């Protein structure tokens, strides 16, 4: 198992509350290095309700400080109806500032999404259920976990073989590892996807589905994040398990990622602008381990 270096433990807000602590606002800590790959991660956001709008405003505010170049979505982009009005109120209006700034979104489909969202140009899916693209030295795979058929698995394996990048990141809707009480881990998907991820050196995976934020302890060398609280939220739904490295389930959140050389920096930010988790993941092969910089360091709580 990959050794893990942790400078501070991460916590769910449940654990924090038990300690009578509150989150401490933290300034932006990403390194903002020149020529790095910077993007935001959102998931389960398409409610069209106030929390989605407020989090989207926070994203736009953060972009002034940390200019990220694109956004990836881990699905449930548009809940409920699928009319032009729904796309307006659940996507185009909340993210107007980002869209007006020319920030592209690269979407995946969640279980609440209609398959023909793949033809909606601002989602950059080009009519495809699953697809790949490259940014700098990072190869991204956007997968459809609603329908993980042999054709998709074969395509994924072939594309992973030819990744040709220092970093390989996969993202999709259903979390392979999750401590969310409502859904939890998608174990059958894990059986078919994890062997490919391990064999072909995927370093980081983003998913949603459970409406919480969670960073999972590295599993077989891979760091898994759940960011399913960028609009929908199941407050108090994160059950701290042996998987949990850090988590947050008291408010909506999004993630900022910066990849610079052999390091991936992450920072998870709440609707009120508080950093609830952050850290750096060295590229496997360069060094190993995850160093986390929790907003609540240097306190520590046992991970149960």
């Amino acid at each position: 198992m990959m050794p893990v270096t942790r400078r501070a433990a991460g916590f769910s807000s449940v654990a924090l509350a038990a300690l009578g602590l509150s989150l401490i606002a933290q300034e932006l800590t990403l390194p903002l290095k020149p020529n790095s790959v910077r993007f935001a991660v959102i998931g389960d956001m398409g409610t069209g309700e106030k929390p989605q709008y407020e989090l989207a405003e926070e994203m736009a505010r953060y972009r002034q400080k940390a200019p990220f170049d694109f956004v990836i979505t881990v699905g449930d982009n548009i809940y409920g109806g699928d009319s032009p009005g729904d796309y307006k109120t659940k996507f185009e209006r909340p993210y107007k500032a980002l869209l007006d700034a020319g920030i592209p979104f690269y979407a995946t489909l969640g279980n609440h999404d209609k398959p023909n969202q793949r033809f909606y140009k601002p989602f950059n899916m080009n009519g495809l259920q699953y697809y790949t693209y490259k940014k700098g030295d990072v190869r991204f795979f956007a997968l459809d976990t609603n329908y993980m058929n042999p054709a998709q698995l074969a395509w994924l394996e072939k594309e992973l073989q030819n990744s040709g990048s220092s970093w390989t990141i996969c993202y999709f809707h259903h979390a392979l590892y999750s401590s969310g009480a409502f859904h939890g881990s998608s174990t059958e998907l894990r059986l078919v996807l994890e062997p490919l991820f391990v064999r072909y050196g995927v370093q980081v995976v983003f998913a949603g589905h459970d409406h919480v934020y969670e960073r999972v302890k590295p599993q077989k060398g891979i760091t898994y994040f759940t960011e399913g609280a960028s609009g929908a939220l199941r407050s108090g739904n994160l059950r701290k398990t042996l998987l949990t490295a850090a988590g947050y389930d008291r408010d909506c959140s999004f993630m900022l990622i910066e990849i610079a050389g052999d390091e991936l920096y992450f920072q998870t930010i709440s609707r009120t602008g508080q950093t609830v988790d952050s850290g750096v993941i060295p590229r496997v092969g360069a060094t190993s381990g995850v160093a986390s910089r929790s907003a609540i360091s240097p306190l520590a709580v046992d991970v149960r």
Partner: protein
Amino acid sequence: MSSRVGVVGLLPWLLLPEVVSSGLTHHAQAPPVSVEEARVFKIFTARIRQYVKLQKDVEASLPVLKPTNEVARIAAHQQALARKIAQARGGAHQGDIFTIEVSKTFRRIIREEFLGPEARLARRTIRRDDPSERVVRLHVNDIHPEDIPLTTTPPTLLSKLPQLPKDLAYRIVGRDLTLKDTKAGLIVDLIPNAIPLNTP
């Protein structure tokens, strides 16, 4: 009881020849099929090809759908495609593609999946988001239910059923297995109560 012993090849994958030679991991490999399964799958595949031909002919009569900012155009294309396919298949009935013997074979494969050693995983995969567990009545040529969250079709089951061309998918709604045209949003055929109850 299982007849999946006589290996005759990789028939479930024949619709995707590029898959067979890709050097897959064991999780993605096609399981062996029996002679009888191969025969039934061949019937099924022939009917799928007929449907795909009809689908393509109908779609050729419509403006090409390309990625667009105009959601109304996407919706209009789907609706027109669904309407025209439904018209072209006006006499379609349940069982036209999932024929009696195809259904029988599919039911057995599904039963093995949901009552076999990996049943727990498959049942967990199809656990629904919809807490009401309401029963939805499905009919051929109707629009596939859009107001309930999609159920992930178990990947291990998908590896055992004949592979489908792009824009067709196996879907699970309640206990029914549907054949869905994902572009038109139509129910092409279905096997009612294909998913067995928890006990054999």
